[in-house]
């Protein structure tokens, strides 16, 4: 077969699959979002944006992402560096650290609920230590900070490993010779990290950050388990429109807003971490 046609033939099945199960539903959602009785309109968008909970859920979602993603990035970098320096037992440690990846987000939320709820581990522990004399319900509107903290902790615990895995693979791709050259030319370990590892890790950082940021805007189950209605987020509102208010036009509009935010941040990340032409490994 013609060598110029062959690649396209080979990617055809995947293209068809994505077209059928992604592009087509996407078009349907877009039609729903922009549709109304009198044809094309922005009515659905106006409705969801004007709703009093929208700014709160937008702010909560962004705040959560802003709190969680940088901590995850720092942790994942630290853990990846440590794992990469290990000689023995490296695979074992990596497996253990990635266990939370195998747990669904709802299950993760429930695990952390078991820690923070009134009869949970945290209460028993504080009680046992004599810090409190009767169990406290932390996850209420009186403790918004604790609710936020619990959600952030659960997210960090649950989803840092996905970045870790990507970064470990990325660090493994950096040839050892660069570090030897850095050693000979006087770069300290910290300088080697900032001047060699970080810049050469840009492609992996891009992937890890884009993935994590998109997932952070889609946060739902962990919040539902720990915060319930105390802590509205965009995805939770979308769910409420669709299944509680049975307003699928509004739900579709919310979904597109989340998509828009995700695309915006993806472009920003790609831009900030771009590798100049000719400067890749």
């Amino acid at each position: 077969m013609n060598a110029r046609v062959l690649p396209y033939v080979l990617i055809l099945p995947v293209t068809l699959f994505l077209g059928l199960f992604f592009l087509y539903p996407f078009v349907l959602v877009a039609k729903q979002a922009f549709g109304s009785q009198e044809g094309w309109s922005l009515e659905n968008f106006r409705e969801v944006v004007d709703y009093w909970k929208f700014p709160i859920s937008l702010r909560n979602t962004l705040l959560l992402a802003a709190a969680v993603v940088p901590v995850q990035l720092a942790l994942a970098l630290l853990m990846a560096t440590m794992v990469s320096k290990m000689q023995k037992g490296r695979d074992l440690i990596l497996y253990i650290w990635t266990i939370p990846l195998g747990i669904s987000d709802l299950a993760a939320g429930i695990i952390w609920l078991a820690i923070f709820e009134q009869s949970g581990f945290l209460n028993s522990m504080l009680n046992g230590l004599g810090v409190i004399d009767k169990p406290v319900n932390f996850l209420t509107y009186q403790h918004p900070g604790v609710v936020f903290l619990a959600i952030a902790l659960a997210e960090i615990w649950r989803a840092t490993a996905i970045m870790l895995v990507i970064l470990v693979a990325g660090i493994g791709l950096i040839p050892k010779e660069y570090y030897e050259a850095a050693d000979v030319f006087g770069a300290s370990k910290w300088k080697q990290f900032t001047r060699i590892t970080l810049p050469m890790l840009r492609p992996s950082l891009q992937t890890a950050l884009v993935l994590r940021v998109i997932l952070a805007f889609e946060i739902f189950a962990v919040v539902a388990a720990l915060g319930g209605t105390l802590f509205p987020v965009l995805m939770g509102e979308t769910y409420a429109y669709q299944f509680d208010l049975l307003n699928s036009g509004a739900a579709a509009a919310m979904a597109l807003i989340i998509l828009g935010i995700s695309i915006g941040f993806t472009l920003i990340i790609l831009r900030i971490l771009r590798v100049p032409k000719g400067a890749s490994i």
Partner: protein
Amino acid sequence: MAEIQIKNVAKSFGAYQALNNINLTIADQEFMVLLGASGCGKSTLLRIIAGLETATSGEVWIGGKRIDHLSPKDRGIAMVFQNYAVFPHLTVFENIGFGLRMQKRPNDEVKRRVERVAGLMHIEMLLKRYSGELSGGQRQRVAVARALAMEPDVILMDEPLSNLDALLRMEMRAELKGVLAESKTTAIYVTHDQVEAMSMADRISVMHQGNIVQAASPIEVYRNPSARFVASFIGNPPMNFLPATPAGAGKWQVAGQTLDGPKADKPGLHFAIRPEDMQQAESGLVATAKIVEPLGAHLLVTCQIDEALFRVILDSDTVVKPGQTLTLAPQADRVRWFDPDTTLAVA
């Protein structure tokens, strides 16, 4: 002053002994080449001097100071790596200035020194480029410039030309030697290419299985190999060997001929001679030509003497046919003798 002294350095990787008790002194501003076959420990020795590898035992001194416990950056060395290790995310300018930046030199000094060595290596016009936009030869120049910019006491090079094509290699060889001589640094240069070694070195250390077999000037290594290994490693084609049996005091019987030799009390020796040191003559060793290869400048004839293969280089005008019998006389002052037991040269 940067004299390098390597004292009783040994290195083992687990049970594998990569270096056995290396002793070597390299004079200030000397160009020393470590030459040997793949896996003989050249890189290991160089990396121990650089501080990228720790010796199992022994000491390394540079300029009268023991440095084997210091980190690489405190040893006064710079290094050119085999794959160059030119940082892909930095421009050529920042690559060359990397070490100076790490020393927190002021901007104008970095600029001055980078531009000076870039001029020496003829890469001034590439300073703004990234390494992905350079050819192999240009990358190699950047790697050398980066080392020179440090103005080190000692420059270490691990097969810096091995990734270049033959023509470029020859060009860079001469250029590198000139630049290094001018910069007055002591240089250690690792290669497995004997032509490179012969043409660049002040002295060659021939290495074999973790030992330095001979450390001497190129011509000495070529003319007076200290051991049979050196004789058969250096020279293309290498030395010829024939067994010799004693035939009275200072006389040795070689392939039916009696030759003058050392007055050694041995049951046998190996007679050795370079291919170009044999001439056709009235009397001498009787050989049968097997393969005749006209190489332009001369004629390479592979012949058989008794059971052994024997190569001679004759004048290109000589007419030799395969199967023809040649009578070959060795040039007396070029004959060397080796002890088959110790493999060492016998005077």
